């Protein structure tokens, strides 16, 4: 061999030796006081009112706390920074008695002034922060701003009217109209209390607007100094690499069991699973249905179920005939073999939905709900009764390139539904589009006649399911039903819990009679962990604390 080749090969072999030496070195394993969690992405910003994505909220959940919280694993409202609360007779004034001797992580005392400072901050957000893309939850729950920008809702639309400090440890929130869903919404991490001192010092709302009209935060509150009252506090955040939170030594409640939690962004589902298998992470969320068996079959791993808090449905747009005919909608309901789909494609993690509300939500009707068990003959009879000649052509839309908790594989759901509808007097014309933004654009602008869609609840309140979908006219469903709209508005403004429950039960039944959609599944998403991780309690609304989690090597 020539000298040249010898040199080349020496170099190549040197590389091999490097590899071999690397293989011999054992990687770092997490110490038992540190847990590494695989996130699907980095947070956008660590400032509750300015986000709506799950990865931001997961971190915010650990650092901030709201006036009320949820009992772990449920949607039951429990005291958090407020120890008790009461509504005035008019339902317009809510007084919160606050927990005493609580301090923010920067030493600022938590009191009535802090509560009002937070509410006033949210209500006074500057124009660029007033879009749904930034302050989705404030817009959804409170619906208006003090100084609205062009196109933004103003004080006349706002549920929030003002806040008064009543004594040192008490605050009163004044509403412009009755709403009891407001209390449930306060459990959202988006409305966690931030230190007024830190908000000011680190200029939470300061920023410049560039030539594109985009708001650039110039302060460091949401990136380097998010200060709440929670059991953990931010240690460091390097975007694309890791975000570290450390236990808060001055926390008012039981101290966090682990010293440090590291969130690591791993966007690819398969990569998260493999990182769990190698021990590089100790847990991750949103396990793909096809990976559940792998996790379950491993002696070192386990899955945890998040209670069903979603609904998968077949929507029907009544602005596109013949979907405006209730007989045709009933025919669709009888023509969908929902049980087969749920049994076949949800790996035992789904239950057939007979109404839009998941069973956990207040207002779920236990009786009186019309049932539409698969019955092709009845479907054909209904179509004939409607004056149509089967097969009736329908345009059925389904999304591609997506997996949602309520719809792990939309194309399989579509194929199965399409087959069952074909036997029930329909001729299905398939339409598909990539989920985001094409498919959602088509359905939300009213182009899709029949379509697969679903919803995961934001907070434990029926208004977040029923009012959001059926409380007003929408291009998505294309119907106008003043009676249903009035019932839902009445239910949302009722503050007496029993009356409210009864109203929502009625609404849930009415929706199933009117059939704007055919709900077919409530599914339980899965989390995966190393077997030696303990104390993680999955929440239906993903409000999960790491403070109770421990980990043994």
């Amino acid at each position, binding site marked *: 061999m020539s*000298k040249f080749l010898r040199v*080349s090969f020496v170099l190549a072999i040197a590389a091999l030796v490097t590899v071999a030496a690397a293989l011999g070195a054992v990687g770092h394993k997490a110490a038992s006081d540190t847990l590494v969690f695989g996130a699907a992405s980095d947070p956008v910003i660590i400032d509750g009112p300015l986000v709506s994505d799950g990865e931001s909220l997961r971190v915010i959940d650990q650092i901030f706390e709201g006036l009320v919280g949820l009992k772990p694993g449920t949607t039951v409202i429990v005291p958090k920074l407020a120890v008790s609360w009461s509504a005035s007779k008019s339902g317009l004034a809510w007084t919160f008695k606050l927990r005493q001797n609580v301090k923010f992580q920067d030493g600022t005392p938590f009191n009535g002034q802090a509560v009002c400072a937070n509410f006033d901050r949210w209500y006074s957000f500057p124009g660029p922060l007033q879009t749904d893309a930034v302050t989705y939850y404030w817009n959804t729950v409170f619906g208006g701003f003090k100084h609205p920008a062009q196109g933004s809702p103003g004080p006349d639309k706002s549920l929030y009217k003002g806040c008064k400090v009543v004594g040192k440890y008490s605050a009163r929130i004044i509403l412009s109209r009755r709403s009891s869903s407001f209390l449930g919404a306060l459990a959202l991490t988006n409305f966690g209390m931030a230190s007024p001192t830190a908000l000011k010092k680190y200029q939470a709302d300061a920023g410049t607007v560039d030539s*594109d009209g*985009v708001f*650039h935060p110039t302060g460091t509150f949401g990136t380097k100094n998010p200060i709440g009252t929670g059991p953990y506090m931010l240690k460091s955040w390097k975007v694309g690499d890791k975000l570290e939170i450390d236990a808060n030594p001055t926390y008012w409640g039981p101290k966090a069991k682990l010293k440090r939690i590291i969130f690591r962004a791993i966007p690819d589902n398969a*990569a998260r699973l493999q990182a769990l298998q190698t021990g590089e992470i100790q847990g991750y969320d949103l396990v793909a249905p096809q990976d559940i068996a792998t996790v379950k079959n491993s002696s070192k791993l386990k899955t945890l179920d998040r209670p069903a808090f979603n609904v998968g449905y077949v929507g029907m747009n009544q602005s596109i005939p013949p979907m405006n005919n209730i007989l045709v909608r009933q025919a669709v309901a009888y023509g969908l073999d929902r049980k087969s789909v749920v049994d076949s494609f949800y790996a035992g993690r789904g239950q057939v939905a007979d109404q839009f509300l998941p069973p956990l939500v207040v207002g779920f009707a236990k009786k009186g709900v019309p049932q539409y068990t698969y019955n092709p003959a009845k479907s054909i009879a209904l179509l004939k009764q409607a004056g149509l000649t089967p097969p009736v052509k329908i345009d059925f839309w389904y999304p591609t390139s997506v997996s949602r908790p309520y719809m792990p594989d939309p194309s399989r759901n579509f194929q199965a539904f399409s087959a069952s509808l074909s036997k029930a007097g329909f001729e299905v014309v398939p339409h598909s589009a990539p989920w985001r933004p*094409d498919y959602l654009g088509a359905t939300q602008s009213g182009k899709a006649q029949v379509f697969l869609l679903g919803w995961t609840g934001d907070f434990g309140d029926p208004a977040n399911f029923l009012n959001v979908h059926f409380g007003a006219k929408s291009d998505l469903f294309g119907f106008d039903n003043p009676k249903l709209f009035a019932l839902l508005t009445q239910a949302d403004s009722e503050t007496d819990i029993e009356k409210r429950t009864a109203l929502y039960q009625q609404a849930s039944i009415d929706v199933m009679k009117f059939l704007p959609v055919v709900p077919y599944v409530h599914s339980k998403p899965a989390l995966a962990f190393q077997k030696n991780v303990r104390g993680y309690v999955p929440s239906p609304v993903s409000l999960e604390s790491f403070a109770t989690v421990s980990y043994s090597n």
Partner: protein
Amino acid sequence: MLRFIVRRLLLLVPILIGLSILIFLWIRALPGSPAQALLGERATPAAIVQIRHQYGLDKPLYVQYLRYVDTTVHGNFGTSIVSRRPVTTELRERFPATVELSVAAMLFAIMFGIPLGFLAAKRYGTVFDHASLVGSLIGVSTPIFFLALILKYVFAVRLGWLPSIGRQDVLLDTPHPTNFYVLDGIVTGHWVAAWDAVKHLILPALALGSIPLAIIARITRAAALDVQNEDYVRTARAKGLPPHTVDSRHIFRNAMLPVSTIIGLQTGLLLSGAVLTETVFALPGIGSWLANAIFNRDYPVIQGGILFTALVFVTVNLLVDISYGIINPRIRLS
């Protein structure tokens, strides 16, 4: 040489202008909008109108384009609609990851591809030659993400020898002045961190370097076969030069001309492979960043990212052309 470089640099201007128009029109021709992508199921028509207004997407196309050009020439690519951070900041953070990965992959491809190809040519027609052909074909035809998954499964999941994700162990707290992790470890004297960064590069580099390796090996083999039948090689041998001198001075140097072009082209093409490799290995580089941006219709990131990538691609090619001139004096003279 200087005139050549200046001319090539001047050519960059029309290329970048043309490209900026293409990207601008292309992303706006895609269905859907950033608002739709941002809000998902929660998008309402009113919210979409509001966001389009905020981001100036309701203005005429030429106004949007002029504003884009105006900010770009001032070195500002705008702000990501999704992360709300300046595109230039994200580029600065992510570009080093892609460069590090590409350099590692190319080093792997060159260190193994050239000797393999050269040896196959020297052993023309033997079992080794045929085996290297089959190996190259497998290398070229195996999808990168598939190879990446297999490598990860074997070396990370089953054997536990190498890490499966990221650029560095999350438990290591070391400074990153340049964001080139291997370099950072060396510069700051954190040898453990540098070594750890190298370990994190091995599997992605093997996956990403497989196709260039196969191509380089084939081109080297073909070029060496061509050159070793040239008159000047025969003359050199006839003069009684030792075989290694003939190999290194006459055959290798001349055979490297087409190989250097291929290396340049492959370096540019590595960027497309980097999208998959970075996704599979959760590496925060430009590839996965751009892929996500397209998915989210994040206009400023797509525009800035592609323009920057194109600039890199053109620059790499320019460097290749310059090196071509150095390797081959005939080009330099002409």
